[in-house]
């Protein structure tokens, strides 16, 4: 009997360690996260103070104050606000299941289309900033870790400064110095490669400081490990040891951070896009929030939740590839 039970437990363990089961569990938990985000977005729009029809009319007309009942009734009927909340919720979820995130109250276009046309430049900016932040952080770490000289202190101090400075402030400084005064980069970047440089730097510098500090600590710790001494003893150059042996170990906490960082970059990009007048989700979301264009905000919340789920799965997979000790649990 005991034997049978043990076998049963092992079978459960084996099933749990099956990559497909692991993947299915991750997807299921992801769906729950997205559903919770959708429900939260729906509840938010219903429970926020202020009548939705009133806001739509006032933002459209640029007025404040109560609109006449006839106008309110027409808008309520148009958007179905006059139906019971349960019916509205059911319709909302039903539409999402069919890939329909609703229609913008102010732009009168499908939200999916609005977000689809804006999210590309935002993702490009966020990924460019992530790669740049990593490049700067790794380069700085390779140069300064384990060294005690004026340069390492200066670079480390600069990293702490960059990690704490608000990106929009940095963005304005970069803009005034490199675009308006020195005229190296365009002020209105739009979608050119040159126009991507300053917004990318404004986002990446802060994150590079953060990455740099995290990787530096781990790097310094790994430098003292026996396998590093052994590599040196085999006659490898100092830089070779750092690049081939130490960096791989030191990068692990940084990889974990990348999922979080990409999320942070996507939200940070919104502010930076406003400063640099770049096309992207930023302008649309700020306008939608200011006019309480709830379908757009809800759509952005849903898509962000989906992106986060996707990124966390990718990061988990990457982590396991870099560190074979990890099991799919």
């Amino acid at each position, binding site marked *: 009997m005991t034997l049978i039970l043990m076998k049963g437990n092992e079978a459960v363990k084996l099933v749990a360690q099956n990559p497909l089961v692991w993947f299915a569990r991750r997807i299921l938990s992801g769906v729950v996260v997205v559903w919770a985000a959708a429900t939260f977005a729906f509840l938010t729009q219903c429970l*926020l*103070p*202020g*009548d939705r029809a*009133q*806001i739509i*009319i*006032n*933002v*459209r*007309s*640029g*007025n*404040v*104050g*109560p*609109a*006449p009942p*006839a*106008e309110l009734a*027409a*808008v309520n009927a*148009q958007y179905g606000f006059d139906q019971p909340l349960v019916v509205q919720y059911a319709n909302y979820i039903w539409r999402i299941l069919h890939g329909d995130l609703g*229609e*913008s109250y*102010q*732009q*009168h*276009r499908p939200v999916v289309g*609005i977000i689809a*046309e*804006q999210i590309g430049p935002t993702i490009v900016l966020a990924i460019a900033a992530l790669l740049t932040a990593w490049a700067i952080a790794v380069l700085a770490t390779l140069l300064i870790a384990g060294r005690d000289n004026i340069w390492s202190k200066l670079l480390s101090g600069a990293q702490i400064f960059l990690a704490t400075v608000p990106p929009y402030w940095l963005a*304005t400084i970069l*803009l*005034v110095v490199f*675009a*308006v005064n020195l*005229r190296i980069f*365009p*002020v*209105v970047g*739009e979608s050119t490669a040159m126009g991507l440089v300053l917004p990318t730097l404004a986002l990446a510098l802060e994150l590079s400081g953060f990455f740099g500090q995290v990787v530096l600590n781990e790097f310094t710790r790994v430098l003292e490990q026996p396998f590093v001494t052994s590599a040196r003893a085999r006659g490898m150059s100092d830089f070779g040891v750092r690049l081939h042996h130490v960096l791989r170990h030191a990068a692990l906490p940084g990889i974990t951070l990348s999922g979080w960082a990409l999320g942070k970059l996507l939200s940070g990009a919104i502010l930076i*896009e*406003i*400063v*640099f*007048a*770049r*096309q*992207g989700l*930023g*302008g*649309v979301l700020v*306008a939608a*929030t*200011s*006019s*309480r*264009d709830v379908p757009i905000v809800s759509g952005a919340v849903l898509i962000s939740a989906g992106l986060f789920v996707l990124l966390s799965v990718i990061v988990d997979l990457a982590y396991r590839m870099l560190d074979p000790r990890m099991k799919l649990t």
Partner: protein
Amino acid sequence: MLLPTARPTRRFTGQSSHLARKMAVTLAVLSGLSQWAPSVRAQEGVAVKRGGVIRYGHFQEPACLFGGWVQQWYLQRQYSDNLVARSDDGKIAPWLAESWTISDDKKVYTFEIKPNVKFTDGTALDAQAIADNINGWLSNDPDLRNPTAAPYLSDSFESAKAIAPQRLQVTLKTPFQPLLNVFAQSSQGILSPSALKRGLAVNCENPVGSGPFIVDKWRHGREVTFRRNPDYNSAPATAKHQGPAYVDGISWKFLPDQTVRYGSLITGETDAIYDIPAIAWKDANSRFGILRHITGGTPLRLALYAARPPFDDVLVRKAFAYSTDRKAAVDTSFLGSLPFEGNGALSQSSPEYLHELGRAYTYDIRQANQLLDRAGWTERNRNGIRVKNGNSLTVRISYSNAFLKPDGEQALQVIQQQARVAGFDVRLQPTNPADFFAGRNLGPDDYEIVLLYWVAPGAEIFRISWKPDQNGEPNRFNPSRFQDSALWGVIQRAEQNFSSAERAGLYQQAERKIVDEAPVIGFTVLDVTLATSPNLKDVWLDHGSVGEPVFYDAHFDERK
């Protein structure tokens, strides 16, 4: 063709006979030609360079390319035409209507519509198309209702119909002299009725007018591109030339950050920008062409809630006005880029503006204290705040950056400190735009003062602000809740009076009464500013409307 708003009614009574109507039209055309000829001739013989695309940096991006918000008017001015235009000096000039007559009882307007005009989708622009537009503005259909025209016209409008292919008849229930002023505002630009049938979703994105430019593409978050309408033949009499625009198009960029906007003009990435930042005002004046229009209608003003204590007492309202040195607050906060306006009733660019009222309620703390004593607010608590019947003299100011530039908040903080000396406990209630539009801090018990404005050509704005509540329906545009039937009577008499002098006199009578009763007190003017690069010529602001930038006459000089 410059028909003074008061005169055509006596001269051309179009109801009398067909012959008289024909004469009226002929006279109107001749009169117009002679008056507008100099501006047309001024362009003759001058080789104007054609071509090029104007790169214009604007401030805010609306959610729809037409509508009631002034940011939408700016765009609509480029691609649509109005029934009539209004010149800089407030006179009504022909546009889509070549001439018009007004019946003896002032209730029937008959417009002769310019022939051979087409919308850019090929639809004929005839009397029926304009009638469809006007009837839609005043309907309850959310896709067609016009939030600017409706509050002006809903009381007086009866119908609009085409009585001949090129003859439009607008009938009113009661005379309303500012009708043509309302028709001249850009939000009343005429749109293609066949395009309107496509629904708001398509029209917001790609509206179709008959104007000098065609909306080409809206890259949301970035720009709207316009291309020249090569067949344009319906310029207003107020324009500097006729026929198609000189430039190939406009790249209307949205650059909300003022550093980027002004920086783009300095580096030559834009040819013109909107709203020069206060900090760059002096620099811009030395480098670029500067255009400025102080908008008519109301200034940005403090509306005092007059329907309950403490501001139901006119003495307390006046005391608040005297206790605050608003000019000093505005001058120090806006660095001279936005002047102070003391007349809370009417903006200084309105024709009916009374200059002496611009100096109303200058800072006088002694007077403020005396008025508060007379009003019974004689005691003070230990914080120096006045108290009456156990209630402290608290004043909550609601405002939102949707209606106030960033420097304005600093000016309010100065006012907060100034009023404290007289014993007012002023509390600021900043509110984000979404909440403000939803009515937060705007309920009947939520504020004592609110900062708002409404742009318009002139004193016809009084109807919007001061119409009393009727049939249980509150006037949503009267945030001070000041209701005075005598004042409303004067305003209505003014609206129905077709003699310019008498009407101005009546409006000024109303203006004095508003300033004297102090339900609103002045704060700053509102303005439209444009900086243009030296090689871009003949951009102008439509002073007859609310200062919309007009690129129709603009052209580059040879350097471009």
